[in-house]
């Protein structure tokens, strides 16, 4: 069954690629001498709900300029119907390629089918879509939550070995507590999965023990409340805190301070996202590391778009590079942070 789907996908991609190639040829014929043709990309962004999203938008605009791609930008103001309208107008304009950040996972089949019928390749950016037919888009660009989880464990392992930290309870294992994201959200599931996988595969796996894991719903409030409870239950034992996002870590830091402990020293704190607040906390010495969830996806998007239009084969899933920022680089990095 899987093979069949793969075969189907491959053939559809070939058709799409061939379609584009054909289009290009036709246009090239129209001009006297081809080669300096400028690609037009229609891009539909969700809106501007957070600094993270703003950074995402700016990155795409800037990358398009640098890559010499003519960008038709459309802001959907948090509404799916606006995005669908935008995509339809891109099709009507006959852009070369369409990229969009889907605000929700479902409801895209019809409009993407229209794009496919018009032989315009589609790239999904940042978020996931659920389609009956995955051939409706050529590639998906985004962040790799599993890898982020992996990186968290790798950093912890390196740091603990480097700093020669000893478990606070005098035992042989470092005790880890985890603040999970919203129950059932794909990001939370994958980050946890990546973390546990890396731990299981590590030669030092026996040195770590997950003491407790509870949801903090990605919010500061709950992160703080759950951490308070962790501290009451296992206070003198906790060595490491891993929070699925920076906000929960920031809440937890306050809880740790209230308990009379030193965040970042008594308890090593690492989280994911890389928002400015977390850098601020690292500069103050209250946190140790953040693994970036990178919004700067523009460059990769433009590269992928060029490849697709040149008829090259691209991976269905393309991930952006994501950095790891320990506290010692925080002060240097903060001014450069875009979100």
């Amino acid at each position, binding site marked *: 069954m899987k093979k069949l789907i793969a075969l189907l996908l491959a053939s559809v991609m070939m058709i799409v690629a061939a379609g584009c190639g054909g289009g290009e040829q036709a246009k090239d014929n129209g001009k006297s001498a081809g080669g300096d043709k400028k690609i037009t990309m229609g891009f539909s962004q969700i809106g501007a709900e957070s600094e993270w999203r703003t950074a995402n938008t700016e990155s795409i605009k800037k990358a398009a300029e640098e890559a010499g791609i003519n960008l038709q930008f459309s802001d959907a103001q948090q509404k799916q119907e606006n995005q669908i309208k935008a995509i339809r107008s891109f099709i009507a304009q006959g852009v070369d390629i369409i990229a969009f950040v889907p605000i929700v996972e479902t409801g895209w089949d019809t409009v993407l089918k229209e794009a496919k019928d018009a032989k315009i390749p589609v790239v999904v950016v940042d978020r996931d879509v659920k389609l009956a037919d995955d051939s409706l888009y050529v590639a998906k660009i985004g962040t790799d939550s599993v890898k982020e989880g992996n990186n968290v464990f790798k950093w912890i392992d390196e740091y603990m070995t480097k700093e020669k930290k000893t478990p606070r309870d005098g035992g042989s294992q470092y005790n880890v507590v985890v603040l999970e994201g919203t129950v059932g959200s794909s990001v939370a599931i994958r980050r946890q999965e990546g973390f546990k996988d890396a731990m299981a595969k590590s030669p030092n796996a026996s040195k770590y023990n997950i003491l407790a894991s509870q949801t903090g719903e990605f919010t500061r*409030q709950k992160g703080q*409340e759950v951490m308070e409870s962790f501290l009451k239950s296992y206070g003198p034992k906790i060595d490491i805190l891993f929070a699925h996002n920076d906000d929960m870590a920031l809440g937890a830091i306050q809880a740790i301070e209230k308990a009379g402990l030193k965040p970042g020293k008594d308890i090593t704190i690492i989280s994911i996202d890389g928002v400015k607040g977390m850098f601020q906390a690292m500069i103050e010495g209250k946190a140790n590391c953040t693994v970036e969830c990178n919004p700067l996806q523009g460059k990769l998007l433009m590269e992928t778009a060029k490849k697709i239009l040149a008829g090259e084969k691209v991976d269905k899933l393309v991930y952006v590079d994501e950095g790891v920022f320990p506290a010692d680089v925080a002060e240097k990095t903060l001014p450069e942070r875009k979100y």
Partner: protein
Amino acid sequence: MDMLKKFSGSSLFLPVVALTVLLIFNTLFVDGFLTIQMTEDGHLYGRLIDILNRSCSLIILALGMTFVIATSGIDISVGAVVAISAAVVCTLIGGRGDGVAQMPMTLAVLAAVGVGVLCGMWNGLLVAKFKIQAVVATLILMTAGRGIAQLMTEGQIITVYYKPFEYIAGFLPSMPLPTNIFIALAMVLLVAILMKKTSIGLFVQSVGINPTAARYAGINVTMVIFLVYAFSGLCAGVSGLIESSLIRAADANNAGLNMEMDAILAVALGGTLLSGGKFYVGGSVIGAITIQTLTTTMYALGVSADQLPVVKAAAVIIICLIQSKKAQEMFDRWKASRHSQQKNDNKAILGKAVKQL
């Protein structure tokens, strides 16, 4: 004995029993539940303190909600008003990294509470003057409120670095308990005194039982309903201050999220009927503490994240059943019938044995 009898007959009896059961359960199954320590800087530290600290904003919301429900109304906008108030205070003080306030904190605090009152007055106007059903009228702010808060914070989480802002939900220097506990206590006392010394409680109750009769009795029904919602708004405003001070930030998406439901539950657990009429302020306060105790218990027992809502729901059902008069009657009847059946059985066996002999 007389005291006990008097207490068991009082309205507070069942809510107190429910809370006590929960506390006993905790004492048995959670290590060091009752331990309260003094930290080096003179603060009390322990799970019981956590419960009190965290339930403050819910207690205050439940206070306002009790009166609204007593007039047979409901206010489902309080969660959103909490978010608005949090947004107001944090944007006014400002999220400057150097810890300087853009505006004096007293002013910002007053503005936040004031906005809360305004929101409450808006609800009151719709319900009392225009006679829109309470659920629908407050639904407007419930949905729009978070949007307003988002607009104020421009979709960002505003972190306040201004030090005194922590004091609202933190420790004032040389105080053993966090300030918000005192705020909640003051509000409860204020309400208690008003109930004792004035006839406001009676007015509210009579409006809830029969507004027409109340009007004929000379009560300004419109005014009473309006004030009740305004007070609920005030409570939500104060709650918003506490919620934002706890995390030293305004999070428009999550501040006070679903708190309206918890507040309604607290009032219901406290024994006030949602159909209005007789109300129990003390019961609501205990109900709020019960809800927070339940949450803390779940975390303390380490119930896994995916099972948390189910376990919590089951616990709420049990607490409600403990307090239900009907369930009690049924239980008594079942016990009585079992008892008599057992007696009959015993007789039959005895009879058989005698015959055999």
